[in-house]
């Protein structure tokens, strides 16, 4: 029988350490307390961070227990419940922006459309609910990759599938895009999935601040973007406000 896995033992020790005292520790403090090399401790912390068990404070660089760990077992939000709780705000977003609205969650490396509100122009449109879309090429998918450690962990290494000339193709490029998304709090996809189409999306947070889905609008690039091909600021505000309103109703703390 194989013996215990050393890195898991060490990870458990780090979690125990973070669960004590002030709960905020720097890399050297953690490495010193457990008698680990800095590189070893850093590798373990990075993995714990990826699965959401540990978070790193952006300003101080200190580590603490992650929200996913605090809500282990209660973090799951039924997608049908997400739709029910978001429906009012999704409608209002469509009416305000004049564009179609979708809500998506992560499902096995793909973006699952769980809600869809038609563009309010009464033209013939078909419900997309249940459709699976690529994560790295959509605004909603990128939001989930940026904030949902589970989703990020499911992205395969190596080259990414291209849907248009503008699709992000490498994990390196993707990593850079995701940190930009975390900085501003929203994501865009300008002709990355379909030529002529653009989308804007923001995270929906649930209890404890955990990201449970993404909400966004999409439409023709000339309506969604300004002449410089950047998403229009007013639309970005509508999307972020709507996602925040849903988050507030789901019990997320204000952020």
């Amino acid at each position: 029988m194989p013996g215990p896995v050393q890195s898991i033992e060490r990870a458990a020790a780090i979690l125990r350490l973070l669960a004590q005292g002030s709960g905020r520790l720097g890399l050297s403090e953690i490495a010193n307390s457990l008698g680990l090399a800095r590189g070893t401790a850093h590798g373990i912390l990075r993995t714990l961070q990826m699965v959401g068990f540990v978070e790193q404070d952006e300003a101080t660089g200190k580590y603490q227990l992650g929200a996913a760990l605090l809500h282990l077992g209660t973090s799951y939000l039924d997608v049908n419940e997400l739709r029910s709780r978001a429906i009012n705000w999704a409608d209002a977003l469509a009416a305000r922006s004049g564009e179609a609205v979708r809500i998506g969650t992560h499902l096995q490396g793909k973006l699952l459309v769980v809600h869809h509100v038609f563009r309010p122009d009464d033209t013939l449109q078909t419900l997309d609910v249940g459709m699976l879309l690529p994560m790295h090429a959509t605004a909603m998918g990128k939001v989930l990759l940026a904030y949902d450690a589970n989703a990020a962990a499911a992205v395969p290494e190596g080259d990414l599938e291209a849907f248009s000339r503008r699709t992000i193709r490498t994990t390196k490029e993707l990593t850079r895009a995701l940190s930009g998304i975390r900085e501003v709090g929203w994501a865009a996809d300008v002709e990355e999935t379909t030529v002529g189409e653009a989308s804007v999306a923001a995270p929906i947070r649930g209890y404890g601040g955990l990201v449970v889905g993404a909400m966004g609008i999409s439409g023709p690039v000339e309506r969604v973007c300004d002449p410089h091909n950047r998403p229009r600021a007013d639309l970005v505000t509508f999307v972020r406000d709507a996602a925040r309103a849903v988050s507030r109703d789901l019990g997320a703390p204000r952020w």
Partner: protein
Amino acid sequence: MAERYVMSIDQGTTSTRCILFDHGGRLVSVAQREHKQHFPRPGWVEHDATEIWRNLEQIGPKALAQAGADPGQVAAVGIANQRETTVLWDRHTGVPVTRAVVWQDTRTDMLVEELARRPDAYIVEELCGLHLATYFSAPTIRWLLDHTPGLRERAERGDVLFGTMESWLIWKLTGGPEGGAHVTDVTNASRTLLMNIYSLSWDDTLLDFFGVPRAMLPEIRPSAETYGVATRVMPGVRIAAALGDQQAALFGQTCFAVGEAKCTYGTGSFLLLNTGHEPVRSTHGLLTTVGYQIGAEPAVYALEGSIAITGALVQWFRDGLGLIGTAPEIETVARTVDDNGGCYIVPAFSGLFAPHWRSEARGIIVGLTSYITRGHLARAVLEATGWQTREVVDAMNADSGLNLRTLNVDGGMTANNLLMQFIADVLNVPVVRPMVAETVSLGAAYAAGLAVGYWPDLEGLRRNWHRAAQWLPAMDPELRAREYDNWQRAVERTFDWIKPHDEE
């Protein structure tokens, strides 16, 4: 200060909601609170009207705060309410004399049967357009007067007032014992069994028939008109509309033309068809009711197919059986299987309403075998809503001589895609949801906004309507026919369950 919003209050069976809408009819903020359901005996359902008032005291300011608004920015408030639910309160203290008796309550079934045996009973339907049933307010008022010592004398002196929820809230908002307005609107009054459907006023013959003193009744007013100014909760705001929730939804869906219809899926579900300025009589189990009345304009009538239990069955699945944690989870559970496995649930919890009107029926689950799982039961719960819709649509088609071409839907259950698809499948017509699922609230806001000139006319409101989702029928016709037949056989098995001596 600029009047930027219209407020709605939706006082429903399970909760009270307060919503602010902007000029585009778009939702700006929403606050909601559930109230307690009291089930003191089998068949009895009660609410505490004071609890509901306190809930409003909380959510009104909360909805304003969420939008960063103050009452001065609110052009008017409109109220939509659960209909028929009966509140009796003391005019001098403002305290309800009993718990409110909810429309689902069947305590009056013996009384109703007794009244129906009277030789002059035929007059009721003729004068008010409704069936003699436990569902409506008059038998409840009578029952409370008969069973509460001294109440009849107080009611005759005008010391005790009757109202449905909108009357109660308007009276409280406009000052209560200190000069509160005791009013109701035509749509709510049309659900009491006491209002003459042609003259739109309290009818002495009906008051006599039920033994209800006129002194306790509110004044009947149009649905959109300023009734007074709030002195509490949103001081200074005009109260400018009241409609029964189902009529409010008809208005919110902008069904302003003859032949336009909608179905609202909440605790129960209600299909209403605009029939214009003439009350139309049903020969297929539908009710004649008032749709709305704008100020001094003539009233618009509607035919109604009332289904008592739809969302409430989902709630029973959650609270009564504990098989799901939240209502929307029913869809997740239902999707674990492909069909109902031969199982059907007929939720005749308060008897069956339209088109059967069988108060002695009670609910059943049929087709149980050891094959049936939680998933099949969840399917049967959702399918019950689909087939009940089919029954009232069939009745509506037969009465109007027209075939419904699309079904406009709204309400909380429209978030359920599996259910909406099933309804399209069993009706064999497209099902369309508008961009505001909270159509009840929107209708109350529209009526209030019209009354105070915040919106100029009906045409402007119509332009705010947009399609948010559509489900197209895709069921094999043979399967549809077979399943409908099974459903109808299941329904027959609920009949004649309660025997007269059972409840003595």
